[in-house]
């Protein structure tokens, strides 16, 4: 694991992975949209409204996945002080926040016709909203200090504390009575989704994951470049100061 903490090595691997991840993201998203909007059957109860699920459920997975990844990166940043881990946690936060928001909005759009309400304060919906706020809190905190290192440390701790919310989201539908339905895909006794509906769901999930990999690489590369630029500027200013001293000296 420590071998990957080297920025030069990261950049080398990233350069190889990036085009592949991009290709997977674009292709599986196109195929996923085709299947979810056109080439999959309507549900026996929900009719065409079931198609919202193909965006909603993979987004919910991404919300939880990105948070877990962010917490792992944060732990690595805190314990081993890997600057790269901090950068990757920062790069993941907005992706997770965006998918969590998509999940909340699409869920609401589905809830109105199916349940008869836009929103209820049941355990699943509330814990998902808390996840969204945790992302916002992380991003705000990471930038709230003049000293970026202090902000990063505080944000890392917040990310770690908030990680208890992830299992609560996952099992909220089993631990309490909720309006939200229980798990269909990851559950005991196998999925309760017909294979024809599983195809678009998996494709969309794959597309979203690949998208995260692309954004993670792009943002981390940008951050590394920004750090390099800062060092170069500092060196320039320093060198200019030196010449000044020499001229006047």
């Amino acid at each position, binding site marked *: 694991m420590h071998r990957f903490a080297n920025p030069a090595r990261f950049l080398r691997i990233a350069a190889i992975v990036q085009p592949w991840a991009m290709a997977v993201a674009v292709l599986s998203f196109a195929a996923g949209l085709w299947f979810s909007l056109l080439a999959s*059957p*309507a*549900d*026996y*109860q*929900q009719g065409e*409204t*079931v198609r919202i*699920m193909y965006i909603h459920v993979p987004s919910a997975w991404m919300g939880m996945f990105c948070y877990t990844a962010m917490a792992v990166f944060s*732990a690595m940043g*805190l*314990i*081993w002080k890997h600057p790269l881990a901090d950068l990757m946690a920062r790069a993941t936060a907005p992706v997770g926040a965006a998918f969590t928001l998509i999940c909340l909005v699409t869920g609401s759009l589905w809830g109105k*016709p*199916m*349940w*008869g*309400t836009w929103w*209820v*304060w*049941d*355990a699943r919906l509330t814990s998902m909203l808390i996840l969204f706020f945790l992302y916002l809190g992380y991003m705000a905190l990471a930038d709230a200090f003049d000293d970026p290192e202090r902000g990063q440390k505080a944000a890392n701790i917040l990310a*770690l*504390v908030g*990680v*208890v919310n992830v299992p*609560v989201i996952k099992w909220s539908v089993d*631990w*309490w*009575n*909720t*309006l939200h*339905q*229980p*798990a*269909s895909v990851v*559950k005991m006794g196998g999925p*309760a*989704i*017909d294979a*024809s*509906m599983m195809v678009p769901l998996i494709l969309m999930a794959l597309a979203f994951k690949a998208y995260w990999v692309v954004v993670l690489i792009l943002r981390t590369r940008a951050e590394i470049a920004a750090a390099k630029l800062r060092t170069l500027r500092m060196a320039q200013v320093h060198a200019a100061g030196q010449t000044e001293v020499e001229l006047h000296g």
Partner: protein
Amino acid sequence: MTRKKRRLYFVILGLLAVGTAAALVLSALRQDIVFFFSPTEILEAKVQTEGRRIRLGGLVEQGSVVKEGAKVRFKVTDGAHALPVEFEGLLPDLFREGQGVVTEGRMGAGVFLASEVLAKHDENYMPKEVADSLKKSGHWQGEEKK
């Protein structure tokens, strides 16, 4: 112990502490986090129902839906007990006999007076043809009490 090791243990201990605290809080608030009560819980007076709005959840009993104009009467069952419900208003798309439902309102004399009815969806997703063939072959497992 190196500083890295110390930080590692610190993080693990911290996570354990936060996790335990969250578990204790959530189990203490159990009654409040539960979104609805079952007919059994209400009929056996396990929850305070007097003068307070509560939510009742379960399956709409087969053959119990009676419509009189805008008024709807049906029974909500959890398999053990069934509670009659009265409701006036628009029902959601997924409301049907044998499906899950959550109603909000207060207890009247033996009747639950609902002011809001929400349909609860189950975890099964399938095309209509698959549902029909399952019903035909006798492998249908939906619309049964959990």
